[in-house]
């Protein structure tokens, strides 16, 4: 081994981290705010990929426009789901778990019925298909796009939550729903909007993952485990998910450099279990009393 290739592994780690983080963002928002464990998160990602595929295949929309469009489409799906189902279950966490799991099956089979089980592909502009040299590391240009978009979204979310009046309302509801309501904040509306936001973020992630891999009705399952781990390790806060993704992404890359991908993942899962044994509330736990 030499220092150069270790450096490559570290750079690749940042890219892995950004992929895991963008998969976890929507889940973090929904869990952190409403305390809902959204089992359909993976299928929201899948819907994002299919949204982009449809827009591209049937309407010929340029790929970069598919990203915001997928956000809007999946956010609307999330909105409909929240209004039609989730909002009746906020005081029953176990029921939300089952309900969202049911929704995930419906979405997966629904997409399979419409589009079939054969893989679809998303086309990206020529310039994203090349490889870029970062120092001595060669990395696909598209992974840098993913990194950039992840960084942009994290920054935008930070602005939204910490610099706007909407953000104050969301954080007030997170800490103490009753006091928030006593001061004029409609927590039902806040939950609705954060659920839609979280779904939309999954949509963007899906539009990106459709390029990194192939578009399949079952594609959500391969991202959702990582996403859940990031949320659990991070403690459900935005900062927690960022740090958790960063650390585990780097560990994945470095362990894989010494061994292989599968073994690296095995080590990480074990480390996460040990970590949660000693800190079950995660890295940055929310102090507030949720409902």
């Amino acid at each position, binding site marked *: 081994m030499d220092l150069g290739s270790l450096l490559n592994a570290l750079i690749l780690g940042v890219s892995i981290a950004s992929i895991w983080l963008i998969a976890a963002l929507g889940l973090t928002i929904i869990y952190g705010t409403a305390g809902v464990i959204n089992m359909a998160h993976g299928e929201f990602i899948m819907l994002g990929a299919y949204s982009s595929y449809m827009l591209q295949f049937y309407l010929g929309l340029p790929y970069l426009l598919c990203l915001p469009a997928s956000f809007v489409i999946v956010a609307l799906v999330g909105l409909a789901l929240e209004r039609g189902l989730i909002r009746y279950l906020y005081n029953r966490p176990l029921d939300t778990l089952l309900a969202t799991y049911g929704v995930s099956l419906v979405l997966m089979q629904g997409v399979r019925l419409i589009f079939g089980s054969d893989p679809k592909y998303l086309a990206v502009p020529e310039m994203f298909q090349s490889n870029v040299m970062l120092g001595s590391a060669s990395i696909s240009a598209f992974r840098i796009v993913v990194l950039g978009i992840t960084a942009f979204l994290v920054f935008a979310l930070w602005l939204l939550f910490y610099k706007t*009046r909407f953000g*104050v309302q969301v954080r*007030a509801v997170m800490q103490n729903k009753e*006091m928030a309501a006593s*001061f*004029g*904040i409609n927590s039902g509306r806040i939950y609705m909007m954060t659920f839609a936001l979280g779904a939309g973020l999954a949509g963007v992630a899906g539009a990106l993952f459709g390029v990194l891999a192939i578009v399949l009705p079952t594609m959500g399952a391969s991202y959702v485990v990582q996403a859940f781990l990031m949320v659990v390790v991070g403690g459900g806060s935005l900062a927690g998910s960022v740090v958790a993704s960063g650390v585990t992404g780097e560990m994945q890359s470095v362990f894989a450099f010494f061994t292989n991908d599968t073994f690296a993942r095995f080590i990480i899962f074990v480390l996460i279990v040990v970590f949660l044994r000693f800190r079950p509330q995660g890295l940055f736990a929310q102090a507030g009393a949720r409902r």
Partner: protein
Amino acid sequence: MSTLLNFENVTSYYGATRILKDFSFEMEQGQCLCVLGRNGVGKTTLMRTIMGLTDRSTGAIRINGAEISAKPPHVRATYGLGYVPQGRGILSDFTVRENILLGTFARADKASEIPDICLRIFPYLKENLDKRAGLLSGGQKQQLAIARALAVGPQILLLDEPTEGIQPNIVNEIGEILKMLNKELGISLILTEQHIKVARKLGDAFLMVDNGRVVARGPIAEMTDELVNRHMTI
């Protein structure tokens, strides 16, 4: 004087348990109404019923004649209710500034600035706007809770045991501030209190509660020692 708040045969529940039973009273604009009674007779539940925080209630609750009993808490707040709950309900992850700003969401005029009054009467808060509210002492948290309720621009301040667990010199200070808010700014107060002395000093009218029912009410001058002994000594 006109009637500001009016309860008509209100029964309020937690689950299937009735906490307030057939509760009726009214208060005039600009009054300070002291709600008295032993622990556990329903004083806090009265406050929570006004805010709409109990599981359900029957009967009519009116503010300036408008029936609010079917409205959810976040709508009720916009009728000019500034709530200072028992235990203060400070959001400890928020800064002092954010806690006060929380009050502005219930403002009728939708203004998003901290009103001057909040900081004028509590200089300590003015100097520590960016401090995390969780780090404040009990007395400071009480000041913050009152400032936050004032940020609503309230017609009525609901103060649930405002002097509970606060050192004696601050109790006086808070008493003076409440008196000023009531007498000079004309904000009506509903105050639950265990200290008879504070109630006599501030109150215009009293409401004696026992076992979820109104057992006596009237001008504060009519609150005889005999009445106090019967319903408040243990």
